[in-house]
């Protein structure tokens, strides 16, 4: 997410969007298609370097296009399989509600009913270090954990647990569903790490070194 919604674009990279094919509208579409949480008009305006009012107009124009208005969408004027929705003040592209049965079927047939090794290890880090911000998980694991954290959230094994008072970063914790799957009653019942880490009793001290 763009941190500051100030129109002054950081790193002076205000791209000349008008000169690109599709212009500001396509740029807006590009952002809406890949963001994983809704973006506000102010954030979008700041990133695009255009007035919020223009963003608002373009958002409604795109929304109408996707809905098949004016034959601007499919050549036959049919709606697209996706729609632009505004929830809680933010905008994002979703699959169109009409197709929920198809999407449901696709999701149900998902093969990945088992967690990957990477997901399990990340879950282990979160379980023993909770509440923990994503950046710290990444640092400990030595890799980007974005998609794995998304999977764990989706699976209900972890949840957000407020924000770090210092950095403002989102913190993650395990859920009661996790306890249930692991077959323990509470976090305090997690087996101790010490037997697996001979001579390393003070794990807290090690975190900063864990890179």
């Amino acid at each position, binding site marked *: 997410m763009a941190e500051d919604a100030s129109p002054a674009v950081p790193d002076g990279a205000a791209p000349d969007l008008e000169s690109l094919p599709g212009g500001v509208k396509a740029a807006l579409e590009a952002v809406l298609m890949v963001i994983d949480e809704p973006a506000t008009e102010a954030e979008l305006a700041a990133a695009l370097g255009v007035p919020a009012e223009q963003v608002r107009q373009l958002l409604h124009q795109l929304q109408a296009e996707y809905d098949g208005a004016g034959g601007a969408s499919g050549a036959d004027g049919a709606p697209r399989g996706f729609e632009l929705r505004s929830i809680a003040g933010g905008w994002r592209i979703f699959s169109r509600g009409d197709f*929920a049965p198809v999407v449901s079927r696709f999701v*149900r047939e998902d093969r990945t009913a088992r967690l990957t090794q990477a997901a399990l*290890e990340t879950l*282990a880090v979160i379980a*023993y270090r909770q509440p923990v911000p994503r950046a710290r998980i990444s640092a400990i694991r030595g890799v980007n954990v974005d998609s794995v954290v998304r999977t764990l959230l989706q*699976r209900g094994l972890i949840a957000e647990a407020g924000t770090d008072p210092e950095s403002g970063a989102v913190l993650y914790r395990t859920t009661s569903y996790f306890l249930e799957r692991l077959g323990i009653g509470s976090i305090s*019942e*997690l087996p101790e790490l010490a*037997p697996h880490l001979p001579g390393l009793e003070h794990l807290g001290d*090690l975190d900063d070194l864990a890179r």
Partner: protein
Amino acid sequence: MNGPGPVADQPLEPAAQAPQALPRGKQRSFEVTLDNFSGPFDLLLGLIAKHEMDITEIALAKVTDEFISYIRRLRRDGEWALDEASEFLVMAATLLDLKAAKLLPSGEVESEEDIALLEARDLLFARLLQYKAFKGIAGLLSRQLAEEGQRYPRQVPLEPQFAALLPELVWRTSPQDFAALAAKALQPKPPAPTEVGLSHLHAPKVSVREQAGIIASRLRAAGPQTFGVLTADAEGTLVVVARFLALLELFRAAVVAFDQQSPLAELTVRWTGPESAWSAERLGEEYDNAEYDDAEYDDAEYDEVPEGH
């Protein structure tokens, strides 16, 4: 004699020198200045491969000397050209082998050993080209990765109503297994290496200083010797490279001299230092002092060969 023809007649494309992803984003290039050649090191290699320049006409020692002072200059400026330095080891070893192969009596192949040497020379050209080929491909990969990095995939969380439909998770991890996983994941990772071990190589670690000691004692005991003789018992390329670097170190310390009667003649090394009270301990300080803490140089690969313990 099958000669280097099939390989060397092919042009070495300067185009293969794709833009490199230099850590500092600043293009650096090692330039050599010789009596008969001045230009980038890469071009020098290209010329050799094309036979436009005879390997034996190149003062190999001078190239290396210039390279070492180049590296030293960079270090003084606070910059380390580690990629170049490690590349140089490849090139130095290859040049050296090429030179050795070229020192055969020309035209007449008399023994099986000669044939083997000539074939080795072809292989060395091939190896040089292979290395350059991968360098070229690396440039292509770099460009493609950069271009592809401009596109971001859509990967959004499933809406809750769909997430609820996911097949029930298969969970077969016991609390103990889970703790073991956690312990493994939380174990501190090895720090970014400032020095890389050679343990995985089947070759033993080779110390330049140690090799300098060997060379010094042989030269003092047996008098002037050719480079070929000095490296005849080397167990592998690594030792040859170490002896080569050791010779340059000895030369820089002004305790050896090189004699070459004519451009095609053999290179002879003779001892010019003190007959006693000389120790190899003083050599190679620039390797020992190699300090670079910039995380971008994680891939440092240089100091391992000359480093002696």
